[in-house]
């Protein structure tokens, strides 16, 4: 059997006849009903979840309908800004595949007061600058607390929380 395909090396690829195009579109997305309220809350240092009376789940990200029960959700609940780490990673790569010396530490964090597995994606900070340090300082199940931007710098965005940091227990 003969399999077709001409595989180009990087050098050959650079010499190829090519056409280039750069898309120059921008998007502005309305945050909608649930997330507009959530973002407004962030501006004031509050984290808001939404409760469904049918399944009892307290959900974050908040949503105006419960995708499990497929009915409208019922109530806003204000959460604290402490949570636990469900999982984390130590990333040395940027989106364009370039490398970074100091890692980023994305994590899925369940805020206390929400239902089981109700995590959100955010980042961890103050846990070290090398893989070894981070692995020493971070454990799944560990309690963390939000570190906020200064109030006047907040704009109603997820980045109003700079990162989450471990809660130091008193010895």
């Amino acid at each position, binding site marked *: *059997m003969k*399999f*077709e*395909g*001409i*595989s*180009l*090396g*990087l050098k*050959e*690829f650079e010499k*190829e006849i090519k056409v280039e*195009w750069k*898309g120059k579109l921008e*998007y502005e*997305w309305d*945050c909608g009903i649930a*997330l507009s309220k959530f*973002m407004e809350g962030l501006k004031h240092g509050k984290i808001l979840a939404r409760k469904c009376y049918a399944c009892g789940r307290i*959900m974050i*990200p908040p*949503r105006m309908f419960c*995708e499990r029960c497929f009915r409208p959700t019922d109530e806003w609940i204000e959460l604290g800004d402490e949570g636990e780490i*469900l*999982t*984390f*990673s*130590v*990333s*040395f*790569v*940027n*989106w*364009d*595949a370039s490398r970074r010396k100091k*890692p*980023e530490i*994305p*994590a*899925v964090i369940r805020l206390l007061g929400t239902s089981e*597995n*109700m*995590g*959100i*994606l*955010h*980042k961890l900070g103050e846990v070290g600058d090398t*893989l070894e340090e*981070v*692995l020493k300082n971070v454990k*799944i199940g560990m309690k963390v607390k939000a570190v906020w931007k200064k109030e006047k710098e907040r704009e109603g*965005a*997820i*980045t109003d929380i700079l990162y989450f940091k471990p809660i130091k227990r008193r010895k």
Partner: protein
Amino acid sequence: MAQKVAILGAGLTKFMRRAKETGKELAFEAARMALEEANMDISEIDCVVMATAPDMFDGVHMKGDWLSDGAGAKRKPYMRSYVGGGSGVFAIIHGWYLVASGLFDTCLVVAEEKMSSCMPHPQGAFNAIYDQFLERPLGVNLLWIFSLEMMRYMHVHKISLETIALVSVKNKRNGLDHPCTQKGIAGEYTVKDILNSEVIAYPVYRLMVSPVTDAAAAIVITSEHEAKRRTDNPIWIEGVGWCLDTSYWTNRDLYYPKYVEYAARMAYDMAGIKDPRKEIHVVEPYDPFAYKELHHLEGLLLADKGEAPKLLEKGFWDRDTKDGIPSCPSGGLLGVGNPIAAAGLMKVIEIYLQLKGEAGKRQVKREVKRGLAQAWGDLMQVGTVVILSK
């Protein structure tokens, strides 16, 4: 009652980091090869299904329509299958119901991906799968979801990095025997080699990740009476299943892919399979990352939760196993390459070749009457499953 559906021919291009051919040209070559094996002319094809993943890779709006000429779809009923990484296997499911329904007798299923055009790196195209309100502002990249899921899976079952690395060792070795394997991907590696490679997003090491690939794959499927008229040894599609979970991916416990289980149960029920561990003889689970093969084997109910890594250590998933189930005998995405949609269909083709006894050096040692291919995609979200039999 659905009519029975058979596979009559398959085609693949080489897997390449940078192909000279356009996506249309790649699709044409794979489609032509599949038609040749089926001994059919394009005029005998009733309808066409095409899988191709994000439009953003090509920078072409609705690229399924743009590529359709390369899939032989001109003036035919045509549909694009698209569930991200799950698309390759979803395409044969899609083709199956067009024929099983009795609407058509023949269908050409083509899968194509050309990732190398996207600059500076196709990984950038994947940023747009994250939630634009709450996730993208954090400066996401694709590797995050995999490394987060792998960490959770390892934590819940206490799996070591060494064990996960064994998946790369197995698949990169198997890939050495695949005639289409991408240059520099397959090879003889040790666990130490894998763990000496760069940490890109811990716990993911570079040699636990499948590469960027350009390639195409195609198969021809027909109804039972067309198949019996044309061949004495058709390979049958016995069961199909697919399932999409919520896009609130951080609201699920990532250690287990429930949506893969539901897709598998649908396919097992359709195929009349009661005990998949006895009745599935060879399997091609989706392995874009090393841990994902194990994760998917558990979702497919071929191992208890947390047991797939232990079976791996015992050689249960090896190609030459006598009493296990060979997994990714092709070499998979880690050993052959990962042209997203075409990778899934490559897995279906591997099961087809294994059942025909035409997998050459990759032919598994044990007797095979039935096999399964599975793909996965979107935001840790979709499972697609197909079961083939002699």
